């Protein structure tokens, strides 16, 4: 609670979530309705709080609806990442030996690819949709989670409670599920929030490049798709989606940092 940026982040995220969740309910202009008469309307004119884009669509409305998409992809991708990563990390850390070595090398190999190169290559080959975006982001982001979960597993497996469980005849799976994993939740939670941040960022990259969420469906990334051409006429089209992305990603990052500090007993918070 003393970690002000983290608490602030929760507030921001809650606001974003509410805004995105209720985007349909608020009395805002239709985000995909083209109104050429309102083309490039500056903010606070013609009923557009944040202005209108090149097809006369309301920016604020699109922003909130896009938020829905981007945040959903972020959280969903996180679930894929964390599930897959925790699974691999647990297996690698618990069984050690050859399995660990192989998994470790595979992790290293995947980490050697620049993330966006790999992501783009996959994104270009799958039909773009929420589900496919979620999957490919998840499938290319599990490495970090695997590493930290594995490290934690290696540390925990020698502890007394694990030896006790083994002594009582618990099977490997049982030990992993009921003893090791619950003690890793804190670490996984931190990794999860950070991976949401990363996923939102990655989705915006692919969508900006045109291979992610396709128009007329809006995502923060694809709202910036042609923004470069409209600098002279409507800079607000380019400014607001970027602010939204930055806000969301920063919040999740601070949240993750705050969680990390909360879980780490050695960390001393600055005196007020």
């Amino acid at each position, binding site marked *: 609670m003393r970690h002000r940026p983290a608490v602030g982040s929760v507030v921001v995220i809650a606001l974003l979530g509410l805004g995105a969740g209720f985007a349909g309910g608020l009395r805002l202009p239709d985000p995909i309705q083209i109104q050429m008469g309102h083309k490039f309307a500056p903010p606070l004119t013609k009923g557009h709080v944040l202005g209108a884009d090149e097809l006369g669509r309301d920016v604020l409305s699109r922003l909130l609806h896009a938020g829905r998409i981007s945040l959903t992809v972020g959280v969903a991708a996180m679930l894929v990442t964390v599930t897959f990563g925790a699974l691999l990390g647990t297996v690698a850390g618990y069984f050690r030996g050859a399995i660990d070595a192989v998994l470790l090398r595979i992790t290293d190999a995947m980490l050697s690819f620049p993330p966006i190169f790999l992501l*783009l290559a996959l994104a270009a080959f799958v039909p773009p949709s929420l589900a496919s975006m979620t999957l490919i982001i998840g499938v290319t982001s599990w490495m970090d989670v695997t590493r930290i979960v594995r490290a934690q597993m290696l540390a925990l497996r020698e502890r007394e409670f694990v030896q006790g469980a083994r002594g009582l005849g618990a099977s490997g799976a049982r030990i992993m599920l009921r003893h090791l994993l619950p003690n890793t939740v804190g670490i996984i939670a931190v990794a999860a929030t950070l991976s949401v941040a990363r996923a939102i960022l990655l989705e915006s990259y692919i969508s900006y490049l045109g291979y992610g969420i396709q128009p007329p469906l809006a995502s923060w*990334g694809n709202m910036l798709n042609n923004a470069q051409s409209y600098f002279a006429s409507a800079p607000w089209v380019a400014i607001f989606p970027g602010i939204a992305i930055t806000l969301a990603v920063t919040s999740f990052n601070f949240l993750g940092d705050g969680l990390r500090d909360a879980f780490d007993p050695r960390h001393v918070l600055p005196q007020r």
Partner: protein
Amino acid sequence: MHRYLIRRILQALIVLVLVSIVGFLVLHLAPGGPAAIYANSPTMSAEDLDRLTHELGLDRPVPEQYVRWVGGVLSGNWGRSYRDGRPVREVVLDRIPATMVLMVSAFTVAVGLGLFTGIVSAVRQYSLFDHLLTFGSMVALSIPTFWLGLMAIYVFAVLLGVLPPGNMGTIGADFALGDRLRHLVLPAATLGVVMVATWSRYTRASMLEVIGEDYIRTARAKGVARGAVILKHALKNALIPLITLAGLQLPLVFSGALVAETVFTWPGMGRLFVDSIGYRDYPVLMGLLMLTAVMVVLGNFLADLVYAAVDPRVRLS
């Protein structure tokens, strides 16, 4: 030392093999296969398509294709671009210098700035500077690089008109160092912002850890001047883990370079990759994917070597 070296070399080789397999699988998972782009052409008859498929070796079993491809790569034949038929190796190597210029300049500035701010932040922990920097670097890490680039273009090229909005040099003009540098500023700065933030955070953390060590306290107790303690003793030891960081950051620098190159129409590997995706130019895509991954593996290997050279404890383990 030898055992460490051999172990690292073996690991790097295994990773390289795995990298090649992953890369190959990724690009051959494409629906329709590499010949798909030709299949859409109305002038292509079924027999032509079959013949093309056979010529490109695409009708052989996948493992065999992989082996042939690896053999080709190792002997210098990276295939031909689907777009214009030029050898892939030529196309790719052509673009390397541009990307290297961008990456190296961004890297140097970012590391320099990052180290500096990280050290100051650590030495003046909890000061206003420290708090601002910590907050600032977190935000900097969260800004989408392409948006930062767009904003930079808007402010400096459109509004103020002092810097060019893209490309490596003025089109049509001869080479002029000043002109090239002016074109380099925005892309390198955009790419560097995220790197500065990362390096600053890690330097700060590493310095804080080192400053807390006993030998620092001993040096101060002995009467060594504060500046000397920071620079000579603390910094030298704090830099060691940062060597590994340099290696680990490499893939991210490539990624950032891709985005920066796209926004600023910089003629580098990243933009070639994006263009090639549009053309479904698989040979070039494969070449780029593999090249970057190999460069990353080599970079990490080098970082490990430097680390071992600098930290004797590693060699003796």
